[in-house]
């Protein structure tokens, strides 16, 4: 500094310096000030970016999950499943039956066997008729000893799954109780009805032959067909050579005129 400067002169540079310092320090100061003054805006911007990003990530996850789940839980109803199963079963059954259909020779032999067996069963059931007097006298009880041989002879004609009731008398006529036993052998018993086997000459598509037995009145008024008092039906299996699915029934008239047999 020039010493010649008087003390009166205020160094002009001071404020300028300050100003300059202010000025030179301005950028930092300004930035600081800007951060300070515009801080809330910047913060909000940052916050908005964070929120947006978070939402974006969650959206992305949801879309991925949605894509993953869509179509993955397809289920059909119970009825649809049942329908499909039934159709498949039907196909298997039809194919199995076709496969198992006997050839002509087997079928013919089977028919002859069915006829012979059905006639035998009718004959054996007819043998039971001569027991009617004793059954009536015993109040419906069947004499087991007397019935023994007929029962034993019936058994081989039926499938083992059949109810034992199949081997007991299918029907007895009450009025037979008064018929004299004659010479004691079943065939000479003059019963009021008889079992007749009906065997068709056709075979079912499952290889069985359906047989019907009818218990028919022996005597009936002129011009009137003899009444059916009872009936029985069964399916003859040509391979096993036995009757199965036996069904026995009495008609209303048959029941009225029938002799009850206990167990």
């Amino acid at each position, binding site marked *: 500094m020039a010493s010649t400067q008087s003390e009166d002169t205020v160094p002009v540079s001071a404020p300028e310096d300050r100003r300059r310092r202010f000025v030179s320090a301005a950028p930092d100061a300004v930035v600081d000030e800007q951060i300070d003054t515009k801080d809330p805006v910047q913060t*909000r*911007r940052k*916050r*908005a970016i964070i*929120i*947006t990003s978070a939402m*974006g990530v*969650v*959206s992305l996850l*949801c*879309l991925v*999950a*949605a*894509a*993953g*789940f869509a*179509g993955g*839980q*397809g289920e*059909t*109803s119970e009825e*649809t499943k049942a329908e*499909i199963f039934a*159709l498949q079963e*039907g196909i298997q059954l*039809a*194919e199995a039956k*076709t496969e198992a*259909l006997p050839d*002509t020779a087997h*079928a013919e032999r089977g028919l002859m066997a069915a006829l012979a067996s059905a006639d035998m069963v009718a004959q054996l059931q007819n043998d039971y008729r001569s027991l009617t007097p004793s059954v009536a006298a015993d109040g419906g009880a069947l004499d087991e000893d007397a019935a023994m041989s007929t029962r034993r002879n019936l058994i081989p004609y039926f499938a083992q799954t059949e*109810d034992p*009731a*199949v081997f007991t008398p299918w*029907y007895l006529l009450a009025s037979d109780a008064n018929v004299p036993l004659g010479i004691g052998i079943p065939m000479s018993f003059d019963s009021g009805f008889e079992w007749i086997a*009906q*065997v*068709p*000459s*056709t*075979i079912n*598509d499952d290889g069985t032959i*359906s047989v*019907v037995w*009818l218990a028919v009145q022996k005597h009936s008024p002129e011009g*009137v*067909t003899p009444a*059916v008092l009872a*009936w029985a*039906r069964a399916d003859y299996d040509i391979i096993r050579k036995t009757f*199965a*699915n036996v*069904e*026995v*029934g009495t*008609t*209303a*008239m048959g*029941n009225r005129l029938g002799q009850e*047999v206990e167990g």
Partner: protein
Amino acid sequence: MGVADGLRTHANKLMIGGAAVLLAGSVFALGTALTTDGTAAAEADADVLIGQLTETLETAEATLATEHAKLSDTISGADLQRVTEDIVRGRSVLLSLVEPAGSQRSLHDAQLLLDTRYEALTPTSRTLTEFLPTWYDATGTGQGNGAIYELTSFDVDVTQIAGLDYTYVGVARLDRVEDGNANRSEFVLLSFSTNADGDVTAIDAYRASSTTRDAFVAAFADDDQSTSADEPSN
């Protein structure tokens, strides 16, 4: 400058708003995917499968019918087509026997009607003189209670083929329509014959006894619950 400024000013709202819309859409998509579980697509696939299986079944059954008919023809000359038609005739006969009671027609009128309609029936036929009155009594028609019965099953077997005459025996189950109650069932044994012209040449109907009826109903009820063979009944 104006738009840019505007965007800048509302930038935050735009960002958050846009993201919110996107999020809402995604959540909705996820919810839909979870709840609808693609049943429609699966059912459509099932329908196609059912269509294919049905066709296969029809073919299999047709093959069986053809083979069976060939066999029948060879061993007995039985015309299975005719048997099928005859069973339909038998069903119609049965229904015309039981229907008058349901329609409140008097017994006498019913007997006249059936006698006229079927040559096989005459005034002395048991079907008219015994079956019809029995049927009217059993179904309570006499007391003005003309109940309607529907045929729920008709199990027919061919029992005889004599030349061109076919004879059948069938067991029919008739259920009372009103209550659909098993206790109001009746069974009828029907024997009938047909000739080559399709005429019914013999008709014999018998009502099954109540004892038999009860036994059959019980046996069929058991069958519904298990797959055991039919129980014989006396």
